[in-house]
C-alpha cells in the first residue's frame, strides 16, 4: 500500500513537471509571438517591406516641339539602358566578357569598371541600347537580380538638320542643352513618377503598383513660330552662299514684322542634332543671337527715320557730299564715290557716309543715342533662346565728337542680326517696335504680358522710308542685285569691317549684310543675311555677297506664303 502510494505520488509529480514544462514552453512561444508581433512589429514590417518592395522611378516622356504648321521638330522614343549591381555580381570577369561580347564593348574595360565600383548598388553598362542589343542581352539568359533594364528616352529630330541651333539638344541625362530644349526645359522635361514593385523571395516581380501620390507627368509640347519650309529655304540658300563665297560663318533670319514671329533662323556652320557627335566646335553657335558686329550702312534708315520723326530732318532736305572727302573736326571722312548734292533719299540710296555724318551733326549725340535706344539697340530682344547677347551701345557719357559721325554710319555700336532685323521690322510695322518671338505661348495672359508693340516713329515716316529710299535702294541703289521679278522690294545693304578682339578693326576682313522685305504696302516678311568674312571671289560688298541670297529667300517665302506679285510675272520664272 505504502509502495503504491509512493508510486502514485511520483507519477503525479512527473506529470506535474511535464505539464509545467509544456506550459512554460507554450508561454515562451506566446512570449516570442508577442515580442515579434507587438513589440517589434513596426521594425519587422518595415524590413519585410524593404525586402519585398522596390521603388522604381518612372521616367516622364519629354514634350514634343512643333513648328507653326504642326510639323514635328523634336520627339522622344523609348529605349532601354542596361545596368548592373556590382555588389551582387559573384563572377565579375565572366559577366564582363559576356556583356561586352553582346554589346560590342571592351571586356577588359568593363571588368575594370565593375571592379572599381564593386561595393556599389548601381552601374550603367550601356545606355540607350538598340533593339538588336536588347535582344542579344535577353538571349544570354542571365539569371539573378544583379542586372536589369531601365527605360529611358532618346531624342529624335524627324526634320533632320533643320534649325539645329534654334532647337538645341537633350543630353544623355535628358537635360536640355542650347536652344529651345534648354530655354523651355521646365515645360518639356515633365515630372518623374514612382512605381512600387513587389518581389518574391527569388527577386521576381510579382506585382506592379503605380504610386498614386507620385504619378508621372509627361512634358508639355512646345509650339514654335518657325515654318520648316521657310527654314529650309534659308538653309538651302545659305549652303549655296557658303559654296560660292566660303565665309567664316553666316546666318539668315526671316521675320514677320507685324507679329514678330520668327519664321526662320539659320546659321552656318551647322550640325545634325540626330548625330551631334559629328558636329564641329563652332557649329553649336546660333549666330543670329550670339554674334555681334558693327551694322554699318544697314542701320542708317533707323537714324534717318528718327530724325524725320523728331522734325530735325525733312524729306526734301539736301546734303552736300563734299566730293567724297569731308573734314569733320579732327577726322577726315571718305565716301566711296565723289558725290555732290544729295537728297535725303540719295543719302540712303547711295549709302553716303558723309551724308550720314552731316545728319549726325544735325541730330547731335543725345538724339543719336535716343534713336539707338528707341530701336532696341544695346539691349536683348527678349527672344526665348539662351545665350542672346545685348550688343554694344556705350553710355552717352562715353560718346565723343567722333561718335557724332561714326554712329549714324553704323560704327561704334554693335548689334546681333536679330536686333538689326527687329529694328527694321519697326519700320515695316508702321513705326512700332515689336518683340520677336519664337514660342507660341499657350498662356494668353502671359503672352499679352510679354508682348511689346511700342510706337517709336510715326506711321507716315515709316511708310515714306519703306516706299521711298529703301525701295530705291533696290531699284537704282546699292541693292540692285536683290531685284525680284514681279515683286517690289525694299532693303538696305551693309559692309562693315570686322572688329578685332584687341580693339580696332581687322584689316581686309568684312561683314557683308543685306536686309530686304516685301511687299511695300503691307510687308509680310523681312529677311536678313549676314556673311562673316567672305573669302571667295575677292568681294565683300553686301550688295554683291549677301543681297542675292536674301532676295532669293524672300522670293521663295513670298511664293510659299501666297503673296500676290505686285506686277505680272515674266513668262518664264527660273531660279537663280
Amino acid at each position, binding site marked *: 500500500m505504502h509502495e503504491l502510494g509512493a508510486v502514485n505520488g511520483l507519477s503525479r509529480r512527473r506529470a506535474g513537471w511535464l505539464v509545467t514544462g509544456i506550459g512554460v514552453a507554450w508561454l515562451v512561444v506566446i512570449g516570442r509571438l508577442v515580442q515579434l508581433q507587438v513589440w517589434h512589429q513596426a521594425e519587422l514590417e518595415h524590413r519585410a517591406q524593404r525586402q519585398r518592395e522596390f521603388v522604381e522611378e518612372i521616367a516622364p516622356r519629354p514634350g514634343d516641339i512643333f513648328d507653326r504648321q504642326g*510639323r*514635328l521638330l523634336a*520627339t*522622344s*522614343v523609348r529605349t532601354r539602358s542596361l545596368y548592373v549591381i556590382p555588389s551582387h555580381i559573384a563572377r565579375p570577369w565572366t559577366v564582363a566578357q559576356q556583356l561586352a561580347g553582346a554589346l560590342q564593348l571592351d571586356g577588359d574595360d568593363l571588368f575594370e569598371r565593375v571592379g572599381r565600383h564593386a561595393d556599389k548598388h548601381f552601374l550603367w553598362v550601356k545606355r540607350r541600347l538598340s533593339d538588336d542589343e536588347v535582344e542579344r542581352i535577353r538571349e544570354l539568359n542571365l539569371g539573378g537580380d544583379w542586372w536589369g533594364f531601365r527605360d529611358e528616352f532618346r531624342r529624335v529630330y*524627324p*526634320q533632320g538638320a*533643320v534649325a539645329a541651333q534654334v532647337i538645341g539638344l537633350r543630353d544623355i541625362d535628358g537635360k536640355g542643352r542650347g536652344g529651345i530644349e534648354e530655354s523651355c526645359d521646365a515645360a518639356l522635361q515633365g515630372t518623374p513618377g514612382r512605381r512600387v514593385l513587389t518581389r518574391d523571395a527569388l527577386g521576381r516581380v510579382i506585382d506592379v503598383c503605380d504610386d498614386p501620390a507620385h504619378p508621372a507627368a509627361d512634358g508639355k509640347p512646345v509650339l514654335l513660330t518657325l515654318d520648316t*519650309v521657310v527654314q*529650309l529655304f534659308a538653309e538651302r540658300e545659305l549652303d549655296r552662299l557658303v559654296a560660292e563665297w566660303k565665309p567664316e560663318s553666316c546666318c539668315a533670319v526671316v521675320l514677320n514684322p507685324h507679329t514678330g514671329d520668327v519664321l526662320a533662323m539659320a546659321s552656318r556652320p551647322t550640325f545634325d542634332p540626330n548625330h551631334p557627335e559629328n558636329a564641329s566646335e563652332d557649329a553649336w553657335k546660333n549666330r543670329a543671337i550670339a554674334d555681334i558686329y558693327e551694322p554699318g550702312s544697314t542701320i542708317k534708315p533707323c537714324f534717318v527715320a528718327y530724325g524725320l520723326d523728331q522734325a530735325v530732318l525733312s524729306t526734301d532736305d539736301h546734303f552736300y557730299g563734299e566730293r567724297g572727302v569731308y573734314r569733320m573736326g579732327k577726322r577726315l571722312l571718305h565716301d566711296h564715290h565723289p558725290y555732290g548734292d544729295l537728297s535725303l533719299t540719295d543719302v540712303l540710296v547711295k549709302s553716303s557716309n558723309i551724308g550720314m555724318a552731316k545728319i549726325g551733326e544735325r541730330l547731335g549725340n543725345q538724339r543719336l543715342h535716343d534713336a539707338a535706344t528707341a530701336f532696341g539697340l544695346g539691349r536683348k530682344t527678349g527672344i526665348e533662346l539662351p545665350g542672346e547677347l545685348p550688343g554694344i551701345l556705350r553710355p552717352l557719357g562715353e560718346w565723343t565728337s567722333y561718335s557724332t559721325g561714326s554712329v549714324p554710319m553704323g560704327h561704334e555700336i554693335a548689334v546681333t542680326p536679330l536686333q538689326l532685323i527687329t529694328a527694321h521690322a519697326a519700320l515695316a510695322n508702321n513705326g512700332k517696335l515689336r518683340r520677336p518671338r519664337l514660342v507660341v505661348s499657350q498662356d494668353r495672359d502671359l503672352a499679352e504680358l510679354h508682348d511689346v508693340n511700342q510706337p517709336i516713329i510715326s506711321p507716315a515716316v515709316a511708310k515714306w522710308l519703306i516706299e521711298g529710299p529703301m525701295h530705291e535702294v533696290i531699284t537704282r541703289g546699292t541693292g540692285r542685285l536683290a531685284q525680284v521679278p514681279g515683286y517690289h522690294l525694299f532693303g538696305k545693304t551693309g559692309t562693315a569691317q570686322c572688329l578685332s578682339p584687341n580693339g580696332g578693326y581687322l584689316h581686309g576682313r568684312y561683314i557683308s549684310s543685306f536686309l530686304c522685305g516685301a511687299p511695300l504696302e503691307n510687308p509680310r516678311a523681312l529677311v536678313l543675311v549676314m556673311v562673316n568674312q567672305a573669302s571667295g571671289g575677292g568681294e565683300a560688298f553686301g550688295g554683291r555677297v549677301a543681297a542675292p541670297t536674301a532676295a532669293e529667300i524672300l522670293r521663295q517665302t513670298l511664293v510659299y506664303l501666297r503673296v500676290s506679285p505686285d506686277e505680272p510675272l515674266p513668262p518664264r520664272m527660273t531660279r537663280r
Partner: protein
Amino acid sequence: MAFRFAAAVVLVVVVALTSAVMEKSNLAQRRRVSQQQYRLDELREQYSQLRSEAQRLGAPARWLDPLEQGRLSLQRPRQPMRAASRATPLLNWMVPTSRDEGALR
C-alpha cells in the same frame, strides 16, 4: 454542444475560403490591370515611333527639291490606288515611276 462547435468551425472555414477566393480574384484583376497598362505603354510607344517615322518620311527636306524639280507630281493618277473613293483625295498621289512618265509622254 458538439453541434455548435462544429457549426462555428464550419463558419470559420467558409469565411476563410471565401476570403481566399476573393483575394485570388483580386490579384487576378490587378494582374489584368497591370497587363493592360503595359499594353497601353507599349501602344503609346509604338505610336510615338510610328509618328516619328511618318514625320521623317514626310519632312519637307525630302520632298522640296523633287517637287521644285518636277519629279514629284501632285496630280491625281489615272489609276487610283484604291477602288473606293477616299475622303482625303490628296493621299491618292504617288511618285511617278519611269514607266508612268513614258506613258504620259
